[in-house]
């Protein structure tokens, strides 16, 4: 125990006052002859033991009271190891910086963050009453702290409410903000208390140490480091990266998952089982052994139960930091598509057949499309809903009854691809299926005959490259697509009808639409204004034909637009690009009820985030249905490296005095004089009560 004003202890001699009064102030009692002395004697006999006890209590209370007051005025403090050192120049304005980074989730017997909370509470309790304090929670997002104040109760509540994040923490930034919050405080002493595990990811030693502006000069504040890991290493293995992609070459609905794991500790991990989960079910397992600091990559193959967007995860055995031993992903598993190809101009010569190239493109090896070829008469007898897509290739206008079935099929969610040819009569088509087509057909335009060079054939000019249909077309593939020549094509009416959901995905270089898309009900209709054989163009023999037709089929079946791999990171945002006619109004996170902030962008996309929790996120439309495929949000692997900053490095950065804190060399000064004052007040009250009950 130490005393701020030890000379006040001289006042403890006052404690002798009751004894001295008892000894020397024995006033001569007044003699009183009294007739009823018998009653006085009897009363005295009855009360003598009680009175003796009461006198003893009074004497003790008064002595303690007179002892407590001067001792309290001497300002005693209990000195406890591991606390805050008393500032040499008196009280100091203090900022408590508490690390909330992912590393603080590390757990052995208890989590580092629970220790951090306890250390912060302890640091708060050990401050002198005249020392103002502020709190700086240091996580992925940091706000400037309020100026230091004296509301300890609010700060205790704030410390209790702190939670560790899944992201990183920039201690340099937090220390800078904390230092700035202390600048305005009039106390000459400034103190920064840093409660952290001091991992290499949270502290940049190349950045300048915190300084506080005092007038025109920068001064170094007193820095107290509270190492919640108590100098120990934090062994950790974690998943560095997971890449999941369809593996059609391995079989239908096969998924190939390649993951990279790293051991960031100084010891070998032994045999680590790595489990692949798809759709919440463990579907494959592998083992890997990681040496100290080693990285290993493994690939697992598994078959998804169904096509479409499938959520999965790779899971390692949990260690001290279990959060980075699981990494979620979403993979688009190609669905097997059934396409009814209606051949409007069959031919005994295969390459002259209208559907020859189209069917060949769809049925190419590795394609998930299963085409069924029919002539119109047979096709109209088919049950359309059994197919994902209907491709009407150069087909005469169907009967009104078939047209009605076609309309119902599309509006119910089916995909319809219509290509032109000599069999197509614009008036009949417009009459029967005008409402279904993206635009009304007009007339056939000839840009030149096949083989003719005098008349320049049409080429694709304006293509919506960012549309999912054209996303694979980059570089030479794009040139190949643009090189296709179109000699004849159907002109369609200009401009979309009002309220019509039609897009021109590609147009010829003369401006005439080449590929149009319309949404009808829940389904989609794609109109190619030329042919899919060689009659009107040479597109069918171009390399770009096969991928475009496969993607068109997949797109019409609704399985293509979400193929773009999307993955978010903790603390970052992600741009979602929904279909033009779809709106993302909510993104639901892995925790029930957790909603992620949305910021619509002018181009129709939506910026989501920042994300605070890893897991699978689901974009929803206004009706609560899926507006897009789900996506995964993963941890930043840099935060999983729990390599700690060495004490020597901390000493060089903050100074020797600061580093003594984590090593346990500093001593906390716990004030006890306030308790003594409270005790004195209680004693005074008891003494008064005892006197009153006399």
């Amino acid at each position, binding site marked *: 125990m130490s005393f701020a004003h030890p000379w006040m202890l001289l006042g403890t001699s006052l404690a002798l006052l009751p004894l001295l009064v008892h000894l020397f102030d024995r006033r001569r009692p*007044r*003699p009183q002859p*009294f*007739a009823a*002395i*018998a009653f006085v004697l009897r*009363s005295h006999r009855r*009360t003598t033991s009680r009175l003796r006890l009461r006198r003893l209590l009074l004497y003790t209370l008064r002595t303690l009271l007179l002892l407590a007051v001067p001792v309290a005025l001497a300002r005693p403090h209990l000195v406890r190891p591991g606390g805050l050192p008393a500032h040499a120049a008196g009280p100091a304005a203090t900022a408590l910086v508490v690390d909330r980074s992912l590393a603080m989730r590390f757990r052995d017997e208890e989590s580092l963050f629970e220790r951090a909370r306890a250390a912060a509470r302890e640091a708060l309790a050990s401050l002198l009453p005249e020392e103002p304090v502020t709190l700086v929670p240091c996580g992925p997002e940091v706000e400037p702290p309020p100026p230091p104040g004296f509301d300890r109760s609010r700060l205790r509540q704030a410390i209790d409410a702190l939670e560790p994040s899944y992201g990183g923490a920039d201690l340099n930034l937090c220390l800078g903000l904390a230092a700035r919050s202390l600048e305005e405080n009039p106390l000459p002493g400034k103190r920064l208390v840093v409660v952290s595990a001091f991992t290499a990811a949270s502290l940049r030693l190349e950045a300048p140490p915190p300084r506080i502006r005092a007038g025109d000069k920068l001064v170094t504040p007193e820095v107290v480091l509270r190492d919640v890991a108590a100098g120990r290493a934090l062994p950790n293995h974690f998943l560095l990266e997971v890449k999941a992609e369809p593996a059609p070459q391995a079989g239908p609905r096969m998924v190939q998952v390649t993951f990279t794991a790293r051991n960031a500790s100084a010891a070998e991990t032994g045999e680590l089982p790595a489990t692949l989960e798809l759709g919440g079910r463990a579907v494959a397992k592998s083992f890997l052994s990681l040496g100290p600091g080693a990285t290993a990559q493994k690939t697992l193959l598994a078959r998804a139960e169904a096509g479409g967007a499938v959520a999965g995860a790779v899971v390692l055995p949990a260690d001290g930091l279990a959060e980075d031993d699981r990494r979620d992903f979403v993979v688009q598993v190609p669905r097997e598509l059934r396409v009814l190809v209606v051949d409007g101009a069959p031919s005994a010569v295969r390459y002259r057949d209208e559907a020859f190239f189209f069917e060949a493109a769809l049925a190419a090896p590795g394609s998930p499309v299963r085409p069924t070829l029919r002539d119109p008469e047979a096709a109209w007898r088919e049950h359309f809903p059994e197919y994902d897509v209907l491709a009407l290739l150069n087909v005469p206008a169907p009967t009104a009854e078939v047209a009605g079935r076609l309309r119902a099929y599309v509006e119910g969610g089916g995909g319809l691809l219509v290509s032109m040819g000599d069999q197509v009569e614009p008036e009949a088509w417009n009459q029967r299926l005008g409402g279904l087509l993206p635009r009304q057909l007009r007339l056939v335009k000839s840009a030149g005959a096949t083989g003719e060079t005098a008349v320049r054939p049409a080429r694709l000019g304006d293509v919506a490259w960012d549309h999912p249909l054209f996303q694979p077309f980059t570089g030479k593939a794009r040139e190949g697509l643009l090189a296709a020549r179109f000699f004849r094509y159907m002109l369609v009416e200009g401009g979309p009808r009002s309220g019509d959901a039609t897009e021109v995905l590609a147009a010829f270089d003369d401006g005439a639409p080449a590929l149009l898309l319309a949404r009808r009900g829940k389904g989609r209709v794609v109109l190619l204004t030329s042919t899919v054989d060689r009659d009107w163009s040479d597109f069918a023999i171009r390399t770009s034909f096969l991928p475009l037709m496969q993607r068109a089929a997949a797109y019409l079946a609704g399985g293509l637009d979400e193929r773009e791999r999307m993955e978010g990171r903790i603390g970052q945002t992600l741009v979602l690009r929904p279909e033009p006619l779809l709106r993302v109004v909510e993104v639901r996170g892995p925790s029930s009820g957790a909603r992620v902030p949305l910021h619509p962008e002018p181009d129709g996309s939506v910026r989501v985030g920042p994300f605070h929790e890893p897991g699978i996120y689901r974009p929803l439309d206004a009706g609560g249905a899926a507006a897009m495929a789900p996506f995964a949000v993963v941890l930043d692997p840099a935060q999983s490296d729990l390599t700690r900053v060495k004490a020597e490095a901390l000493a060089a950065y903050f100074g020797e005095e600061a580093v003594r804190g984590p090593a346990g060399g500093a001593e906390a000064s716990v004030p006890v004089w306030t308790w003594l004052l409270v005790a004195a007040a209680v004693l005074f009250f008891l003494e008064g009560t005892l006197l009153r009950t006399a």
Partner: protein
Amino acid sequence: MAPLDAATIAKLAGVKLRARAVMEGVLSGLHKSPHQGQSVEFAEHKEYAPGDELRHLDWKAYGKFDRFYVKRFEHETDLRAVLMVDASASMGYRSGPLSKLEVATSLAGALSYLLVRQQDAAGLSVLVGDTFRDLPPRAAAGHLMSLLGALEQLQPAGGTHLRAAADHLAERLPRRALVVVLSDLFDEAPDALKRILQLRARKHDLAVFHILDPAELEFPFDDPTLFLSMEDERRLEVNAREIRSSYLEELGAFLEETRELCAESDVDYQLVRTDQPLDAVLLEFLARRQGRRR
């Protein structure tokens, strides 16, 4: 006439004057009392003897019993009263103008006046320590002066020996009499009061004036006090404030017990504070006795 308070009485020197003043106050009170004029009321029958007034012959009784009976009335009843005054040392205590003994002698003197004025016999028995001074009951007017003179000379001394007083009176009063005890009853001998009350068993009429000082009743002491016994060598140094409540409990229990014992024995009991107006005390006593006789 205003009641005679203790301060006024104290200004009067000597028992004679005090007793007279008290008596006059009582008589003045009696005139206002609705119970006055009772002395001519029928009291008892007596067989006729020569010399009895013929006008008091009860002719109805003669008709019934064929013998002559004479009616006797109140004022003709020859009451014998003995005033037993406790003059022990404790009766000398005073916190105000009058000591307990002075109050006792004033009350005894006033009662003597009243008795003699009614032609009743009044006697005196004074307890001083363990000795007694007696004046036998007489109705003569000259006897009154002897009574008052004896009261005048009383000085407090010795202890309180109520048992001895009871035995003494029992021996001295062979015939039925009214015994008026004036004392603080501070006798520590067990059953002392009961012995006094046993006089009732001998057909004596008994009245007790329990005379106490206000300081004894209220214990107004605060400081450390050395209490000295007035009858022996006992002493006690104590902080009076600390034992006050306990003292009052003890005294209250004593008074309650005394009151109950008197009530059980059908004895007139009256607590008299020395600061009380004495004529009011006597009037209350007389009124209560009158009520009992009716």
